[in-house]
């Protein structure tokens, strides 16, 4: 196989991995602060992508045509709205269930995800059909042998990396990050030290959901098409990525996301069977990894083992 092709596969895998990682980080954040699994996370991504699309159409109808301004407005609208939605979900469904068994949270968010997904399908105009997503990034590309490097992909990848670095800095360098980590480590102690527990939980859910909105927008710009089902699949993959990485660990989630994308690419390219089995292959490896390291590749430092 020539180098150009290898480079192309690597680029494809990196783009996928970035989206998976962004979703996985959300799962891991939620698990970190509250020890809950929020299954509606993928569908928040879908709603985010559709919010961005709707704001684009809105801007078009008032006659705005600058790509940069539109993109910025879509980003702000999607991230703002999803942060709000994430906090709302935490406030209305997750915090009240804190003392209930974890299974209840899992179920209620699973159902909530279905409600979100079906709402997009039913209430977004013609929402059952795939929707074209505007091309707002410059589409210049250079061909190096078999490798086609597109400027828009490079931008998406860079911005995605910056978002993850930014999140890491937020968690490790700011007071808010300190509070989030304190709550994640020990809720009672954090409360005694004057951390506003509820506010921190809501903020964390807002941050995680904003990441999902960003991933949704990225998904739309990358594929130029969104549909009501994107979040379901990305949710499952993101969740698996968070699990193999080690729930609760940011680095683990990122590693898990890229690992999963790598497995899918290998499954489609290097293995002798039909590419339809690439997901079977990737998930089978996930199962094997979980059997080998039940707490994930990078386990949470203070995870409770029972």
């Amino acid at each position, binding site marked *: 196989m020539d180098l150009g092709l290898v480079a192309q596969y690597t680029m494809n895998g990196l783009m996928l991995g970035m989206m998976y990682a962004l979703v996985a980080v959300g799962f891991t954040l939620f698990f970190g602060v509250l020890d809950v699994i929020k299954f509606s996370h993928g569908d928040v991504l879908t709603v985010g992508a559709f919010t961005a699309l709707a704001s684009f159409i809105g801007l078009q109808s008032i006659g705005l045509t600058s790509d940069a301004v539109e993109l910025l407005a879509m980003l702000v609208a999607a991230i703002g709205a999803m942060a709000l939605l994430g906090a709302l979900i935490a406030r209305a469904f997750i915090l009240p269930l804190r003392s209930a068994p974890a299974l209840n949270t899992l179920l209620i968010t699973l159902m909530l995800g279905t409600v979100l997904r079906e709402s997009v399908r039913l209430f977004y105009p013609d929402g059952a*059909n*795939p929707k074209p997503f505007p091309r707002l990034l410059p589409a210049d*590309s250079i061909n190096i042998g078999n490798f*086609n490097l597109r400027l828009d992909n490079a931008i998406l990848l860079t911005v995605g990396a910056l978002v993850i670095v930014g999140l890491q800095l937020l968690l490790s360098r700011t007071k808010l990050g300190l509070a989030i980590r304190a709550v994640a480590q020990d809720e009672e102690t954090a409360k005694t030290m004057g951390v506003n527990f509820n506010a921190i939980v809501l903020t964390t859910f807002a941050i995680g959901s904003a990441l999902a909105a960003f991933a949704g927008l990225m998904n739309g710009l990358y594929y130029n098409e969104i549909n009501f089902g994107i979040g379901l699949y990305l949710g499952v993959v993101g969740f698996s990525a968070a699990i193999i990485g080690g729930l609760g660990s940011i680095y683990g989630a990122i590693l898990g996301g890229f690992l999963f994308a790598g497995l899918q690419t290998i499954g*489609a390219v290097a293995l002798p069977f039909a590419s*339809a089995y690439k*997901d079977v292959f990737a998930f089978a490896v996930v199962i094997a990894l979980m059997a080998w390291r039940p707490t994930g590749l990078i386990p949470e430092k203070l995870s409770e083992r029972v």
Partner: protein
Amino acid sequence: MNRFLPLAAAFIFAGALGVTGGVSSSYAKDKIKVGFIGPLTGGTSANGLGGRNSADLAVRLRNADAKARYEYEMVALDDECKPNVGVQQATKLATDKEIIAAATHYCSAVAIATVDVYHKFGLPVIVWGAVLPDITYRNKYAEVHRVNGTMINQNERNAELLSSLGYKTFAVIHDTTDYGKGHNKYFSEALAKHGGQIVGTFGVTSDQQDFSAELTQIKSLNPQGIYFGGLTPIGVRIRGQMDKLGLNDVLFDGTSGIKSDSYIDGLGKLAEGSLSFIEGGPTERLPGGKFFLEKYNAQNYPNPPEAYGGFAFAAMNLILDTIEEVGPDRKKVQATLNKVKDRDSIVGKITFDDHGQNTVALITAFVAQDGKWVVWEDSEYASGKRKLLGQK
């Protein structure tokens, strides 16, 4: 039985809403139920809703006809283009003894999964859109009929046309449902007959999002065209991602599965030059197409009839004709349907062979030109004014 009561009530209520006004004399007629199944939600719902409306149109026109012996009510169910859902809905229809006959299924994977149900419960059906040959040919069920042609004819025309244009090498992407696998099989066979070559075959799942790995591999195989056996949602994705990966001079050769307006809406300019084929002709060119479109538009349905609307109309109309002729009895309706020969319909003559398959083999090729599916012969690509991608 009780738990079906609310549902039945809902249908009757909905039916009552649908026929308010203009039917004051019909209370004297017996009320007969007929069924319709298609994908009313999900990625292929555009075709399903178009088919539903068209079948509904046949029922409305009949109910407005003072000479009709019965008053009809259509029960429309949603198979979501999923075989498991389709089997449930088929069972629901087939076990309801009040339903005399039904026009069923657009998706081949669903239609092939449900034939046994219709056979078991003795419900005569006419398939209105699914093109997998096995639906009529795998078994010899007297209950199952089909007004549209099959993908065998479609792929022969496809391979013949492209070979005549000088295309020799193709990569195949197909979904791994019966529909996609059938297309792969018949296209590969037909292409071999015309001396073409398949350089690679890729089976993909019907809800796959990312095709970059498959397309990168195809890029290294350097074919003139990508043949796609599957439906619109992933067709849109594959065509879009071809562009992203720099497959700029490769033809996108589709099937009846992408002949819908949502393929073009989903892709915009990128749809230009894609090919698709349907059994039968474009609605406006069908023998009764003008009449059908006039009546269809007069009802102000929110969605267009799409490629198979005419067939759904013809299927439902044939059912209603037969019930008018022999009365509301499943056995008699089935026996009469099996003998249909040279029957005029808006899709041309209908003749069922011993498998219930309509023997028309009229296939029409389309090319996407300036945001519309244009009949190949009328297009600027056929006249040589424009060139398809990958054409040498």
